[in-house]
């Protein structure tokens, strides 16, 4: 009985919330002892954590080794019950491929789902935020009966397509993105099928990493399978099936109770992107949160239309996935990360929108669309939660990526393609009671690490010229954002190599502040082709810059063909000795910078964590530049003057708006935007896609 239509399945992706309870699950509930259930929950979480750690230890790609891993146990209907991850979008998205397997392959005679099988998937329509997110799942049988699925979803940094490193600035349709695999069987009888592995290897630039990552996922899943079977043996299959379901049910109920405590209202946050991939252009994601009773509805009306021929689109399910980075990590930080949380969340997507891609549109840069949107969740979420619990109201972490993407032949003559790991060294957003943590991680991958430079240098043809805190990388405020890092890469020992960059926010800051805190400054890439840096290093007599500020100094000793580029940079050739400099941003600022404790500014000055410019011009403190001693009276006077200056230059709202309203971006910046300023104004009304 085939259910396959040889096209994407638009029904299964709607099933993001838990499936209805089965009779077996209902029957089991009465007989589950609450104490036994708590022990079971803990045991299952330990199994998932072990799975996550095993996957990381065995993996080969940058992201897998440094923690971009989600490992979970799913009900036999495909819902994710237990999950170990800091990549919270997988808590919602990880289940879709399993529901697809249940729907299409269980009763399909040519495929089937049997003990010893394994399934692979990377089409982001089902499996994640973009096609570099790849997953592997195994069904677990006990005495011939399907009990659950175990799966690992991990970012493998190369997926074919027009550019190496898993994202394609130049993609025009999905056919430019490379590998897009709906759930397929890649193993049976506890063996991976070599013909399928061979095909996957043939379609990507880094076959060794591709295959090692698949085997890492599978090995971890098999260890977890053993542990799960021990639990089933001990507790019995009825308890196991009922217990997995109870975790989901409890999560949903707890989420609804939490939401009911927040103030009812409408919270708005328009978000703007400044690139469409290969060129600059403004687009808007218009986020409205409607909080009523025990439900938060995310509405996207008046967002920019879908971009034809450009990769800056996302499937609606990817947007929901990224919303869970905020929900799991911040609002529901103390609840299990699973799709039961969506019992408290509803959504409305316009039919034609960049956040609701359709057909053959490319979504290769969906991660940027999604993180741009998630910023809005932080900002609107802070306004929604401050009164309930101010510790939830934090500024956002860096969202502009600025990830070096690369591909080519490494120093050992091997083909490689991937990204470097500094996205896992962005700064936290500032909080109501403290600065953001410096170089903390990525907001969507809070458990991830940026690796030692030596580990990256070992099998990539790079020499890091430096990597350290960058004091112009975060937003200022009463509390400042955590610092990001600046770094320099020199291509080393290869002349067959390409480097590019994936990201946004070189014109419009990607990461905003909160309650008067400032944004993270725009970031960009500087490159030097034909650099003399290698000669200067060999010579050894010239002091070389060891931080980004030194690279930008007018007397920087490095010579060559210097250029800057926005962080959406299409890959280009780099030869031995060519250099590449970029910063990953820090966090947004919190509160009025004039309220920052002067001593905190001085402490940052001593640690080179703030610039003298910002100390004087933004924080308005007066101090001796040599001794860094504060002049208390002069600081108070300067800050009082600064407040007076504010009132002097400001206008009443209505008067301000009269002048402001006459401005607009240039037409060339609005080519992809839709109608200005409300993208859908004047367009025909369309039906809305809505969760059941």
């Amino acid at each position: 009985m085939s259910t396959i239509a040889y096209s994407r399945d638009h029904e299964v992706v709607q099933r993001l919330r838990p499936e209805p309870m089965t009779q077996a699950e209902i029957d089991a509930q009465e007989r589950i002892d609450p104490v036994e259930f708590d022990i079971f929950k803990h045991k299952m979480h330990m199994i998932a954590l072990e799975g996550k750690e095993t996957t990381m230890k065995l993996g080969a790609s940058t992201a897998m080794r440094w923690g971009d891993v989600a490992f979970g146990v799913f009900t036999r209907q495909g819902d994710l019950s237990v999950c170990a991850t800091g990549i919270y979008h997988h808590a919602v998205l990880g289940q879709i491929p399993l529901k697809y397997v249940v729907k299409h392959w269980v009763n399909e005679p040519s495929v089937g789902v049997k003990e010893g099988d394994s399934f692979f998937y990377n089409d982001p329509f089902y499996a994640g935020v973009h096609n570099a997110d790849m997953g592997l799942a195994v069904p677990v049988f006990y005495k011939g009966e399907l009990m659950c699925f175990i799966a690992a979803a991990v970012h493998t940094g190369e997926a074919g397509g027009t550019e190496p490193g898993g994202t394609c600035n130049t993609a025009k349709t999905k056919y430019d993105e490379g590998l897009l695999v709906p759930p397929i069987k890649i193993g049976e009888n506890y063996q991976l099928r070599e013909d399928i592995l061979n095909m996957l290897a043939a379609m990507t630039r880094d076959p060794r990493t591709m295959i090692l990552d698949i085997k890492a996922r599978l090995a971890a899943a098999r260890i977890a399978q053993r542990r799960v079977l021990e639990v089933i043996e001990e507790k019995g299959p009825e308890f196991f099936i009922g217990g997995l379901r109870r975790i989901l049910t409890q999560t949903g109920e707890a989420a609804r109770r939490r939401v009911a405590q927040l103030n009812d209202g409408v919270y708005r946050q328009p978000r703007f992107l400044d690139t469409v991939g290969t060129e600059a252009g403004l687009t808007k994601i218009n986020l409205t949160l409607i909080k009523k009773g025990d439900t938060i509805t995310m509405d996207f009306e008046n967002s920019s239309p879908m971009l034809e021929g450009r990769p800056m689109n996302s499937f609606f399910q990817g947007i929901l996935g990224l919303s869970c980075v905020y929900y799991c990590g911040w609002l529901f930080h103390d609840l299990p990360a699973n799709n039961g949380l969506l019992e408290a969340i509803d959504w409305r997507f316009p039919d034609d929108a960049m956040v609701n891609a359709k057909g053959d549109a490319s979504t290769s840069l969906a991660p940027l669309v999604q993180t741009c949107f998630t910023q809005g969740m932080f900002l609107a979420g802070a306004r929604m939660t401050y009164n309930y619990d101010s510790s939830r109201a934090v500024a956002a972490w860096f969202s502009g990526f600025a990830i070096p993407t690369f591909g080519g032949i490494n120093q050992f003559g091997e083909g490689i393609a991937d990204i470097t790991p500094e996205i896992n060294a962005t700064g936290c957003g500032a909080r109501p009671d403290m600065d953001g943590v410096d170089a903390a991680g990525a907001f969507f991958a809070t458990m991830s690490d940026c690796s030692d430079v030596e580990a990256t240098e070992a099998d990539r043809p790079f020499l890091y010229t430096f990597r350290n805190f960058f004091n112009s990388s975060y937003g200022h405020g009463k509390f400042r954002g955590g610092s990001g890092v600046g770094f320099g890469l020199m291509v080393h020992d290869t002349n067959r190599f390409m480097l590019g960059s994936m990201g946004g926010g070189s014109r419009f800051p990607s990461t905003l502040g909160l309650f008067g805190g400032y944004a993270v400054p725009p970031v960009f890439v500087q490159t030097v082709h034909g650099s003399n840096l290698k000669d200067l290093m060999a010579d050894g007599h010239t002091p070389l810059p060891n931080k980004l500020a030194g690279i930008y100094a007018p007397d920087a000793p490095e010579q060559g063909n210097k250029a800057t580029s926005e962080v959406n940079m299409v890959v280009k050739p780099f030869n031995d000795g060519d250099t590449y400099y970029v910063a990953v941003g820090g966090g947004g600022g919190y509160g009025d910078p004039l309220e920052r404790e002067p001593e905190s500014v001085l402490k940052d000055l001593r640690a080179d964590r703030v610039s003298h410019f910002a100390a004087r011009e933004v924080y308005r403190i007066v101090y001796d530049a040599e001794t860094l001693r504060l002049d208390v009276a002069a600081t108070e006077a300067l800050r009082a003057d600064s407040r007076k200056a504010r009132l002097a230059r400001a206008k009443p709202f209505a008067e301000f708006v009269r002048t402001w309203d006459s401005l607009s971006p240039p037409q060339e910046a609005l080519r992809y935007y839709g109608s200005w300023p409300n993208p859908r104004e004047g367009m025909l009304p369309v039906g809305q896609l809505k969760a059941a």
Partner: protein
Amino acid sequence: MTKLRITEYLDLDLVAERWQCNRCGQDLGAAQANYKEGCLVAERDLAEVHPPLLEGQAQSYTPDSQYCRLVEFYCPQCATMLDNEYLPPGHPITHEIELDIAALKQKHGLAANAAGGAKG
């Protein structure tokens, strides 16, 4: 409790149904309206907050003013920056917080049509 702290800088007097500055108590308008209408507003020179670090290049850590402007909202009495917005030039100012005042009053045990409540 009839005064709620809604953000770092915004209090809501639930009986009077008015926004107030948390730092100095300045009235900022009706709770149903955008508190920004009660603020003094200024556009900042982007380079004063985000100075260029690299001379003579297209990119330099300062936002592109064709794409982005910085608008600041000050308390008209104490001049605290209650919030700011980075917006494309001319994009409407956002009404970020629109609370359901009736629901809030019910939650805090206040009659729906208590004193004040005048809209606008």
